[in-house]
């Protein structure tokens, strides 16, 4: 297993700005997803399933919910004496202030990186949802004798300002990495997941620090002709969150069995809540939905994702909705195309309706 010689680094805050609704109270990593998970679960599980023994989680702001979720790493078997999971809080000096880009944030944790003594470092963001075997990625990196290997997918790129597309030669070496200018045609777009030699990473970080460059991708881009940077194609179900609407659409894609099969091809671990199984009442009518434990359903539910502990009272109708943990939909309430954050209450007989291309978001704890 090549992955045992790898240090995993997860950026829990990267791209927070693309979904301000869901990330104003939390990090990207702790955004609830797929009924019982947080986004970071997918990256942590990918790393653990590949056999990566040590993972650092870089945090920036609002990371209480993240800390609460990951705890000491036990659900991912990352509570260990050797390696295991470490939360890397921002490292600020009076001169630098809060870090801005990835290079900055990695530099703040550079001692942690060098102390790991691993030969390779794998960098990943939480807004990429996939189930990939990182062991194969590392093997490909070693086989090509690459300096850096970056994962990419073919398709419509995510509509983020930093989305980039690769131009590669016949060997898969990246010759150009340019910002996407047209978001409607299919290209080889970057998933921003990369493997890099640890000593090379350290060197690049020192250079970036002295040159005051805070964006790590800019450094790679500048060095494309000096370094052997290769692409690694990821096929199958891989999605990048770019907006609230994409959150909604990607969630709904999980109602298709083939997508669920792909995303849960190897186990995805999460914090256990020890809740009772979901209970369906006599008047329950449920169609094409994902339902988590702890739900109580007496109403009608169609094309929905219900997180743990959601109550759907008698006569309530839910269609095309995502309802997060512990929310309550009252008697005869009707909601359609709604994303309800945690602990939302929709009182009896209320009606709320969004559109499939513009779902209504209801913030945490709001009573309607």
């Amino acid at each position: 297993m090549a992955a045992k010689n790898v240090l995993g680094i997860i950026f829990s805050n990267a791209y927070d700005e693309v979904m301000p609704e869901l990330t104003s109270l939390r990090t990207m990593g702790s955004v609830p997803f797929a009924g019982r998970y947080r986004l970071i679960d997918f990256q942590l599980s990918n790393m653990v399933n590949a056999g990566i023994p040590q993972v650092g989680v870089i945090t920036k702001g609002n990371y209480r919910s993240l800390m609460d979720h990951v705890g000491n790493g036990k659900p991912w078997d990352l509570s260990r004496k050797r390696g295991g999971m470490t939360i890397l809080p921002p490292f600020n000096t009076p001169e630098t202030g809060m870090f801005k880009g990835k290079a900055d944030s990695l530099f703040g944790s550079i001692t942690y990186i060098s102390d790991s003594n691993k030969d390779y470092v794998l960098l990943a963001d939480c807004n990429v949802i996939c189930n990939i075997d990182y062991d194969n990625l590392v093997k490909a990196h070693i086989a090509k004798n690459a300096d850096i290997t970056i994962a990419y997918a073919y398709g419509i790129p995510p509509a983020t300002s930093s989305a980039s597309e690769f131009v590669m030669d016949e060997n898969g070496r990246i010759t150009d990495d340019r910002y996407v200018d047209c978001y409607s045609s299919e290209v080889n777009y970057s998933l921003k997941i990369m493997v890099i030699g640890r000593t090379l990473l350290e060197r690049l970080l020192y250079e970036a620090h002295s040159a005051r460059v805070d964006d790590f991708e800019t450094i790679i881009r500048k060095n494309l002709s000096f370094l052997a940077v290769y692409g690694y194609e990821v096929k199958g179900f891989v999605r990048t969150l770019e907006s609230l609407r994409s959150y909604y659409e990607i969630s709904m894609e999980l109602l298709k069995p083939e997508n669920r099969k792909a995303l849960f091809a190897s186990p995805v671990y999460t914090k256990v809540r020890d809740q009772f199984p979901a209970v369906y009442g006599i008047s329950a009518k449920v169609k094409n939905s994902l339902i988590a434990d702890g739900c109580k359903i007496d109403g009608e539910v169609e094309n929905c994702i219900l997180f743990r502990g959601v109550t759907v009272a008698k006569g309530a109708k839910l269609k095309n909705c995502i309802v997060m943990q512990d929310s309550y939909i009252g008697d005869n309430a009707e909601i359609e195309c709604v994303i309800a954050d945690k602990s939302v209450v929709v009182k009896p007989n209320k009606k709320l309706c969004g559109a499939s291309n513009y779902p209504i978001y209801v913030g945490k704890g709001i009573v309607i």
Partner: protein
Amino acid sequence: MAMKPECIAMLLAGGQGSRLGILTKQIAKPAVPYGGKYRIIDFPLSNCVNSGIYTVGVLTQYQPLELNDYIGNGQPWDLDRENGGVHVLSPYQQIKGTEWYKGTANAIYQNINFIERYDPEYVLILSGDHIYKMDYSKMIDYHKEKNADCTIAMLEVPWDEASRFGLMIVNDDGSISEFEEKPKNPRSNKASMGVYVFNWKKLRQYLIDDEAKEGSSNDFGHDLIPAMHENGERMFAYQFDGYWKDVGTINSLWDANLDLLNPKVDLNLDDDTWKIYSRSPAAPPHYIGQNAEIESSMITEGCDIEGKIDFSVLFANVTVEEGAEVKYSIVMPGTVVKKGAVVQYSIVAENAVIEEGAVVGESPENMADVNDWGVAVIGNGVTIGKGAKVAPKAMVDEDMGGAE
């Protein structure tokens, strides 16, 4: 020992549960799945930690592999601790020879050394056979308040069932005046729940005396407790009100599961102040398909349902294909019910496959003679062939061919 606990619990989990037939062929009774995501032993273990008892010895003997695996280091119950925690205690080889646990009292006798290491004031004796939520700390308080040597938890059972239990005749002050073991004509309906609190020093002496006694069956109910009573020790009954069910038979296991769907039954497992913990599989939320119909049922993580489910309890990772029907049944983890198959009034154990068009079990209304009716049971990993019919009350523990 850093901290001396006031009370430790000893959980008797060695029983075979022979009346559960093929369900306990390979696992001990306390490891039998219950309620969608639990096993029976989750109840006494969770009761312990919820009552503030963090040192638990689990005595295993019959088919311990799955049970040991399940308990592991005790992490799901917060029992992975530096001080105390859960300890699996199996019979072991000794200098004078090797002995199995002969009876419940002998099992504790053989582990006197374990208890001595903690040197507690009180020892709580539990069994892994019952479904109930109980605050043991209140019972221990009662024991102290009465200055008792032994306190036995009791429950009032319906009079017509009383003769199945060990009964107690209790004085007004709560002290026990007489015991009756499964009498034909009961004079009391106060049944022992098999939950005891002892003063450790007293219990220790009685265990040693009982072991030395010729002809003793080394059982708490038969030997040790009557001996204490004869000697005039202070013995009290502690009344428990609430749901308590022995799941020792197929019918009672089936009933106890379906009780969870009955809002009138006083067993709320959706209680944040008294959670029942369990080791859970890493499975995504369950999926209810386009044509599925679900009514009055409990479904948990990893299930994939396209068929019709009525008044049933489904465990993790169960698949019910389109056109299949599951009603009044308990379906344990990993089982697949294929297209057009019917599972009714049945218990299907783990990882079984019910092939297309097979029919398992029968509704009591359709029986010519209702006395022939019973819950059908499909064993672990068994395949029921295409179109096969499994009669009510049947126990199938080998693959069954299809009806050609």
